[in-house]
């Protein structure tokens, strides 16, 4: 028999005997990039909103999870709910970029919370000085 090619019982062979998970890797990576950009942008927006609303501590985390969950649902809808034609596992759409996004969100939250507080303080001081 030739190396690497089994001819015996060829008429009985089914496609499911070989289960080689193959997919287009470059398309997969391009899809991952799309998810990454979407998540990062929504982390920024989530941080900004949490900072404006003054969500501290647990409330902030809950808000971030909520924003990420909605983003995941949006991404799933964008993929037409048939994840397996665009990704190799559900984890990609649900978990990927989650922790990195948390860092981005916290940074923006801190930025906006302190930025608003500082601006308010300055305006207050100005107001006091003028009156």
């Amino acid at each position: 028999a030739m190396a690497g090619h089994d001819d015996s019982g060829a008429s009985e062979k089914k496609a499911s005997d070989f289960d080689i998970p193959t997919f287009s890797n470059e398309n997969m990576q391009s899809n991952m990039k799309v998810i990454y950009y979407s998540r990062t942008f929504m982390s920024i927006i989530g941080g900004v909103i949490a900072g404006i609303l003054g969500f501290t501590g647990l409330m902030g985390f809950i808000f971030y999870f909520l924003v990420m969950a909605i983003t995941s649902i949006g991404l799933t809808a964008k993929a037409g709910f048939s994840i397996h034609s665009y990704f190799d596992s559900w984890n990609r759409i649900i978990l990927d970029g989650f922790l990195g996004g948390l860092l981005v969100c916290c940074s923006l939250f801190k930025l906006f919370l302190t930025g608003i507080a500082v601006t308010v303080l300055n305006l207050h001081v100005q107001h006091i000085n003028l009156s």
Partner: protein
Amino acid sequence: MAVGFAVGVLGVLILSHAAYSTIQYRTLLKITEEEFSGPPINVVFELLLGLVLCMWAALAVPGKFQSIQLDSDENRVVSLPSNLDFMIFNHRGKAFPLECTLKSK
């Protein structure tokens, strides 16, 4: 794509206006010595609207998902080389299952 980008910019502008309103509101609270318990309801609406618009932009702008299935229509690499000197037959195709669907563009 450009529409998505415009929607995103609009969302960011609305959020900026919400931030500005919040600053004004909290300054007012500080003058009247009250505690900041929560933003006024119109700021909340603005934030919600900004969130929705930015979510739309976040999903629409980065690009479409491309199929990773090798036998989907956009991934077919079926093409006969015009140059007969460089046709390759000794490739990995022999590792794949024998059953195949003959589909050509």
